[in-house]
């Protein structure tokens, strides 16, 4: 496609239609680029409109087909436990172990298997090679009790009708050093459901309850337990113990089957807005992975239709008050009304308020997926391909109110029980519904097939522009060599090589910059080892060493400007460089869209205009009209925003005021990203940043 333009020297038959279409598109690339870019951004804003209602795709789930057995008696149990825990928390020096002990005792009384799981605080380390490979874990359970550690209490109900090969997991995080009433309530709720499930006959999957000690953070405890769960130790010191004889031992690590689903249950106190108890669902795991949509649907269906809860998902509240968004919603509404009056079959509109709400939810969904950091401890499960959600239940009244509390516990307990009963019906793991989607409201989603349109429209101008630039540069070059053919042959020019393989030099430059970016991305793992550094200092070291390495690479492998060409060819040199850069950028964005769609989408909004607009300042300076001035201004603005630390500073300054902006901010942000193994870090440093450097190269190109 790149140089599909036939040689003009020899008269040839008409090229094939597909080639002609290619030539047509390439020759009108500016028009197509503008149309596609605008279309892409518009499509992004139309996504809430194109959202579909969720539906339960897996028939085996059958939510709400049975009446819940959870009764007031169970809530009394829960209340009793809550009281016990709260009375215990008055004696502060002992709580760490006492709650775990109490829980183990209660569980043992109801006749299930119990053990304690000890774990250390996870030291966040930067391991650049472990982004995609499975981490090699040494698989040693914690043995020494001397060091400070957290204690998870785990109970397992063996299913009377199952074969012990599958399990459903509850997680209730609580802070063992300072327990709150809400945490105690969540433990009480889980305990009452758990003890009920210990008595029922219909269970076909084991139930595991993990009361996670969140003194080092919720995620740490859950991920430590999951790691030990999935790495069996075969010849450790505890192999002396027989699993059957170790029944009374509460330190023996026990397992159930593979996990079908996991529910993280939290109770929080949020007040105000509503008449109903609210259920917030958090689902984003690391790198924008989501649990199967069926799990969210089941929870949503049961919460709304059987328990009468109000279900929420996270949204960006600042967007709700934006005037232009509301105007847009109104425009869309009126357009849909007009369309409906023309043909009553066309139903695509939605009320303006709903549109704004959907956009806010979509924005939050995009943001959390793009960040690549899990929104809760459910994220740990996704690393083992287990579908998990966090259910955050908040009552409408104060938790201290005992009468209300019972009602609230009854609702929550029934919800949990019916979710378990539904998941219990599963014959295989969740696979029926979507994994790749964005939520626009608790009951609406945009699937991958729809949101990819917005991204692809944004991405399409890149290959077109690359092809246009490449063929343009090639034609220009060949014209030039044709013009001075005689001297070219006399000198050491190499017309044969230049014709088709001229891009090789540009490819070398692009390769060097990307190689450099790879080194830059690995530098923090070295800088991390320097003790006692502030983020600002780290940032300075990072930046200066990066520039130093860039200079070394230039001196070793040649800077982009030192290519010995005949002066005539230099005009096309920057164009070739730009086309190679754009091609690489489109490959990078395409890759990222598969790893983490949201990052790629947000990145494309910045990267695509930057790549398309960039034009050597000298060339634009020469023409000197208002259009050129506009181009220069656009270039400079995009160049500033495109520089990742500057972009971050702008966003931070915009949201928190420019006084709060600090040089070390980028370091802190990057640190948080690699602590969570977020691919967003890789995107920013390996794709976005080298593209920005190359854009700077082109801007300052001496042509």
């Amino acid at each position, binding site marked *: 496609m790149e140089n*599909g333009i036939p040689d003009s020297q020899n008269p040839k038959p008409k090229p094939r239609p597909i080639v002609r279409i290619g030539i047509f598109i390439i020759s009108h690339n500016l028009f197509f680029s503008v149309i596609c870019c605008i279309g892409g951004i518009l499509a992004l804003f139309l996504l809430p409109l194109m959202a579909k209602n969720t539906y339960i795709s897996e028939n085996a789930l059958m939510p709400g087909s049975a009446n819940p057995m959870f009764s007031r008696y169970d809530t009394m149990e829960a209340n009793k436990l809550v009281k016990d825990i709260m009375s215990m928390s008055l004696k502060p020096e002992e709580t760490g172990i006492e709650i775990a002990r109490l829980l183990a005792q209660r569980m043992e009384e109801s006749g299930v298997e119990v053990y304690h799981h000890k774990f250390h605080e996870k030291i966040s380390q930067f391991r650049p*090679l472990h982004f995609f490979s499975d981490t090699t874990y040494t698989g040693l359970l914690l043995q020494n009790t001397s060091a400070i550690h957290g204690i998870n209490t785990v109970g397992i109900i063996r299913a009377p009708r199952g074969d012990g090969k599958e399990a459903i997991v509850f997680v209730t995080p609580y802070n063992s050093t300072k327990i709150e009433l809400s945490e105690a309530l969540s433990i009480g709720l889980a305990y009452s459901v758990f003890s009920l499930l210990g008595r029922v006959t219909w269970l076909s999957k084991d139930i595991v309850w993990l009361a996670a000690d969140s003194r080092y953070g919720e995620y740490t405890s859950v991920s430590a337990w999951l790691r030990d769960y999935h790495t069996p130790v075969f010849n450790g010191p505890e192999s002396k113990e027989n699993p059957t004889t170790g029944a009374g031992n509460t330190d023996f690590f026990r397992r159930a089957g593979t996990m079908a689903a996991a529910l993280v249950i939290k109770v929080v106190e949020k007040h105000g807005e509503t008449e109903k108890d609210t259920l917030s669902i958090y689902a984003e795991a690391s790198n924008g992975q989501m649990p199967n949509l069926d799990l969210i649907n089941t929870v949503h269906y049961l919460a709304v239709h059987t328990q009468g809860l109000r279900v929420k998902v996270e949204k960006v509240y600042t967007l709700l008050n934006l005037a232009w968004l509301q105007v847009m919603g109104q425009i869309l509404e009126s357009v849909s009304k007009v369309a409906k009056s023309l043909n009553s079959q066309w139903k695509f509109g939605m009320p303006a308020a709903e549109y704004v709400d959907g956009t806010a939810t979509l924005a939050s969904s995009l943001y959390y997926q793009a960040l690549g950091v899990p929104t809760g401890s459910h994220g740990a499960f996704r690393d083992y391909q287990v579908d998990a959600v966090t259910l955050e239940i908040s009552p409408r009244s104060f938790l201290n109110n005992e009468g209300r509390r019972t009602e609230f516990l009854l609702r929550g307990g029934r919800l949990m029980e019916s979710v378990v009963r539904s998941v219990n019906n599963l014959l295989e793991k969740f696979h029926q519904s979507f994994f790749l989607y964005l939520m626009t409201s608790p009951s609406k989603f945009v699937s991958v097939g729809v949101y990819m349109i917005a991204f692809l429209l944004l991405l399409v101008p890149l290959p077109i522009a690359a092809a246009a630039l490449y063929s343009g540069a090639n034609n220009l070059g060949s014209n030039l060599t044709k013009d001075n053919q005689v001297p070219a042959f006399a000198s050491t020019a190499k017309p*044969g090589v230049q014709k088709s*393989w001229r891009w090789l030099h540009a490819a070398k430059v692009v390769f060097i910059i990307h190689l450099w970016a790879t080194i830059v991305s690995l530098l923090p793992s070295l800088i991390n080892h320097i003790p006692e550094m502030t983020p600002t200092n780290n940032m300075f070291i990072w930046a200066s060493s990066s520039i130093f390495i860039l200079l070394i690479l230039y001196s070793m492998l040649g800077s982009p400007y030192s290519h010995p060409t005949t002066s005539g060819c230099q005009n096309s040199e920057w164009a070739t460089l730009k086309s190679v850069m754009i091609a690489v950028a489109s490959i990078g964005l395409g890759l990222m869209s598969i*790893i983490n769609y949201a990052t790629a989408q947000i990145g494309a909004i910045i990267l695509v205009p930057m790549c398309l607009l960039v034009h050597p300042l000298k060339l634009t300076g020469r023409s000197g009209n208002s259009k050129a001035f506009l181009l220069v201004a656009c270039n400079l603005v995009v160049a500033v925003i495109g520089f990742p630390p500057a972009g971050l500073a702008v966003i931070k300054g915009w949201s928190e005021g420019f006084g709060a902006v600090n040089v070390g901010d980028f370091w802190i942000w990057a640190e948080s990203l690699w602590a969570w193994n977020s691919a967003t870090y890789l995107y920013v440093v390996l794709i976005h940043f080298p593209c920005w450097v190359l854009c700077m190269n082109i801007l300052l190109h001496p042509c």
Partner: protein
Amino acid sequence: MAKMKWYWYWVSTSIIFRLILIYFPNNLNLSSRPEVATPLTSLRRLAEGYWLKQSSISPYSGSMYHGSPLLLAILGPLTVIRFEGQPEHIACSLLFVIADLITAILIRATGQKLHLSYKRSLKSLNVTKLLETSEILSAGDIAALIYLWNPLTIVTCVGMSTSPVENLMIVLSLYGACSRLAPLAAFGWVLASHLSLYPAILIIPVIFLLGYGPDTPPKKLFRQQKSESNGNDLVIQNRFSWRPVVHFILWASFWTVYVLVLCSIYLKQYGGLSEMFKRTHGFILTLEDLSPNIGVLWYFFAEVFDFFRDFFLIVFHVNILFMLLPLAIRLYHRPCFLAFIYIAISSMLKSYPSVGDSALYLALLGWFVYELAEMQFSFFLFCGYVGVTLLSPVMHNLWIWRGTGNANFYYATAMAYACLQIILVVESVSAMLQHDRMLRKQSTT
């Protein structure tokens, strides 16, 4: 001389780079990648086969090992050598590095021979204008450096796969044929076909090479030139000489018998040669292992109904054979290019392809840089190869580790990869024909 120094500098850095990578095998996990190690070439399977053999069980039992007994005899003892503090299989890795180095040297030598014959034929056609362009860098150097620095080659070399040895045998046979060493050519050809079956089709270019000599422009050009210049004696011989071909056939039969005897001795207690053929070549032809790879066959045969299986197996294998004859007729004057095309086609349609195969043909492409200077879509192909090689592991990760994708995701990259190879083959053949046309125009004017 400066050029030579520069060349060896890059060769040694590539070797050092490999040695560095060998020390981080656990971090890279390359040996378990489906792109690198196929059931035929995986060294882990070879180690398993060797272990079975050591415990007096047939190395082919349990469908683990499917390679040649000779490899087992040579590489097997190396797999069990352990050094304190060194990564596993270090001896094998070093062997592969050496194999890569020898391959590169042979590619360079062959490239120089091709270059000489190219220059000679251009001179005899009086097209000296093109000669100046080809003086900058020898095509052999370029090809060797492409082979050594191609990331695919490096990945194959570091990733514990026996492909470097197979590639070495193929290049050895081409080198032997180019320098008219019939025994060497026959040895390379027999071993390459023994190891991976598909190089057997290279017998056609090898015979052309032995019969006509290295690549030249079309023969009729010389005849024209001859008639114009009235019997000026030409350096190029354009008669098919049967002597080296007969030599080659005799030597090939000798080496075949030799290899088979060695194999039968090695496998005497375990079913002998019939078992070997069933488990190696039979395994290639019947496509028993449907685990994902970068080829297009596994998915197709996972989906196809069992009673159509034989039919489609025949269709797919005959597909390669169908292309042999037309290409041979059209390109018989350029046997090395023909060999390149054959290798590219077979690496596209073979049952268990790996990136090692593409590493070989991409390097051989370097032999023809000056002939293919006008090749279209070079940039597109380059971007395509970069994109697909990066996309394929990501799709695999999405399917196998994250569980959010499915087999179609991974297979899509395999299809894109096959399309790229088709474009490469089509474009390079048409560029070569265009080059011949251009030569004709230049020599007649």
